[in-house]
């Protein structure tokens, strides 16, 4: 049994302008101590998916499907049980959270709060644990007395990671943990996350729109488009030779310094991201796809096995080395 199993998850936001299907049938599994990267453009549903994992969605969201954490379904478990999972099982570093630290509270107190709430530790023990957590993320324990505005962006992001570690979780979900940080600080934070995850055997679900960062950090990659995973597989394989034209475009958009092919040739993807409230027919990617086939606007392909390493891809076209005979199944 995998640590986390997501099966046919859908999330729809109800808005005044109509329903917004933000996640449209996502399935994947994350093994213990595994690192999965989730990539995709802005608005494709990454954060919505992350919030659903711990049932943190706003009241306007409707969801279906199953999210099993250690075999228990998060979406239906009783409130008390859910609290326990959020406390000791899995924690989230929210997107942009480093900007939402409480400005008038010392960071040590903010890290200590959940520990105080959930354990019977004495004040001295809480203080010691807080200091340890800060040291773990590379900040001196005395910085517990600092206020958020006295810290740089990179330091604040370290505080967020310390908070995520506070309860010794089995799983950390990190939503864009390094976006907007500069390259050197990004490298510091990524090495930190990698070493913490390796030392403590934590599983990681890392979300980013930067496929190169994910490929460098994670074991496996999933690429999301318009609320669906359209490709999944071993990180190097997906980044190096994507099966889905969207995955391919994402990987190609990353400039490879030194490669004459990308010199003075920035690669983008023409067309606009789809409007989730008004999705194209068939494969949602077809209006932007450079290699679309005749049926792409009619057939909505699901994820099929797409080669060695448990690769999966959602596409109408079949590559010779994918070794599958599933096209028949789809058109049946």
């Amino acid at each position, binding site marked *: 049994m995998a640590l986390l199993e997501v099966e046919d998850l859908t999330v729809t936001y109800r808005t005044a302008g109509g329903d917004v299907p933000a996640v449209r049938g996502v399935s994947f599994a994350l093994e213990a101590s595994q690192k999965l990267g989730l990539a995709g453009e802005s608005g494709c549903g990454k954060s919505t998916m992350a919030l659903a994992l711990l049932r943190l969605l706003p009241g306007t969201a409707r969801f279906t499907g199953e999210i099993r954490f250690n075999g228990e379904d998060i979406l239906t478990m009783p409130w008390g049980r859910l609290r326990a999972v959020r406390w000791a099982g899995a924690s989230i570093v929210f997107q942009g959270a480093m900007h939402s630290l409480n400005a008038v509270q010392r960071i040590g107190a903010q890290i200590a709060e959940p520990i105080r709430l959930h354990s019977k530790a004495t004040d001295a023990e809480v203080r010691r644990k807080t200091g340890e957590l800060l040291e773990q993320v590379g900040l001196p324990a005395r910085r517990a007395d600092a206020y958020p505005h006295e810290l740089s962006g990179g330091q604040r992001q370290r505080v967020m990671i310390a908070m995520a570690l506070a309860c010794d979780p089995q799983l950390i979900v990190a939503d864009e943990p390094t976006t*907007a940080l500069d390259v*050197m600080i990004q490298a510091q934070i990524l090495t930190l996350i990698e070493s913490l995850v390796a030392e403590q055997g934590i599983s990681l679900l890392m979300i980013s*729109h930067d496929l190169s960062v994910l490929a460098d950090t994670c074991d496996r990659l999933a690429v999301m488009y318009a609320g669906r995973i359209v490709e999944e597989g071993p990180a190097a394989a997906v980044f190096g030779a994507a099966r889905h034209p969207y995955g391919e475009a994402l990987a190609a958009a990353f*400039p490879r*310094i030194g490669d004459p092919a990308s*010199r003075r040739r920035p690669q983008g*993807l023409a067309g*606009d991201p789809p409007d989730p409230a008004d999705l194209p027919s068939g494969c949602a990617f077809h209006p932007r796809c450079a290699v679309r086939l005749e049926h792409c606007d009619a057939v909505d392909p699901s994820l099929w096995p797409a080669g060695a390493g448990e690769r999966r891809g959602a596409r109408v076209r079949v590559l010779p080395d994918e070794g599958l005979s599933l096209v028949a199944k789809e058109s049946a």
Partner: protein
Amino acid sequence: MSEPTRSAPILAAEDVHVEFEARRGGGRARAVDGVNLDIAPGEIVALVGESGCGKTTLARTLLGLEKPTSGRVLHRGTPLAYTSKALKAFRRDVQLVLQDPSGSLNPRHTVYDAVAEGLRIHGDVPNERERVADALSRAGLRPPERFFLRFPHELSGGQRQRVVIAGALVLDPNVIVADEPVASLDASVRGEILALMLRLRDELGLAALVVTHDLGLAWNIADRVAVMYLGRIVETGPVEKILTAPEHPYTQALLSVLPDAPGSPVVLQGEPPDPTRIPSGCRFHLRCPVLASGAAAAAGVDGACRGADLGVLAGGTATQVACHYALAVTDPAAAARP
């Protein structure tokens, strides 16, 4: 407009220093601490470096938005005059492009008004509609009429960035200064915007200074790159040279931490350094891996690293590096000079 020549820069910084008054407790911040930088007509120069190294301050100074504490900015060879009339004329030729998420578009203005604003400020009211349409289509928003009445929230991130660029293009400038034009855009949208900037250079001869901490961007579109560290340019030259065979340990470190860089990453520890306390000697020496590893000592330059300032690199297009070790390795005679 004069014929572009490589020798005469259209925009230049000459030994520019910009200092800011002390913030509580600290000393004066030498945000830009001696910079020479030339931008030739039709040239794309990338200014790269860590957060806080002074990129935005230098860019703002080149735009006349910040007055240098010493040194000067030259526009087509003439020093900038800081009167509002002179600056207004200057800005027709040199336009700023900011990143939209930083709020450069007013949420209550339509696309049309956002782009027309520049024309109205400059009193260019005739042909307004035509010129707005033209700027929008040059920025890749076609057909332009379809976008006239839209509001920023009705556009995608990439489209908003194009509107910002159209707003800069509407006055037919010859230079744009773009501060992190694509930092928060998706990789795929980013590529589209960069392709647009290249096309504007090829088709209109538009020169650009692009401020970024993204070295891949420089590889994608720039001709030359200047690497800034703590207020100074520490290495500069053609993109191919600097990004594939960097000589400054700082540039080497920046390249080594990129996700798909070969070899093991040199992750510099600590926070970006503080312009109120610039170290003596080489300003990078407290974090320099070459000094820490003993390589600088082996080359006999460790004393210089700690004690001898490297001076300000000249402008122009030549490859230059401000590092005692690099100079000793490539040009031992130069390093031997005190």
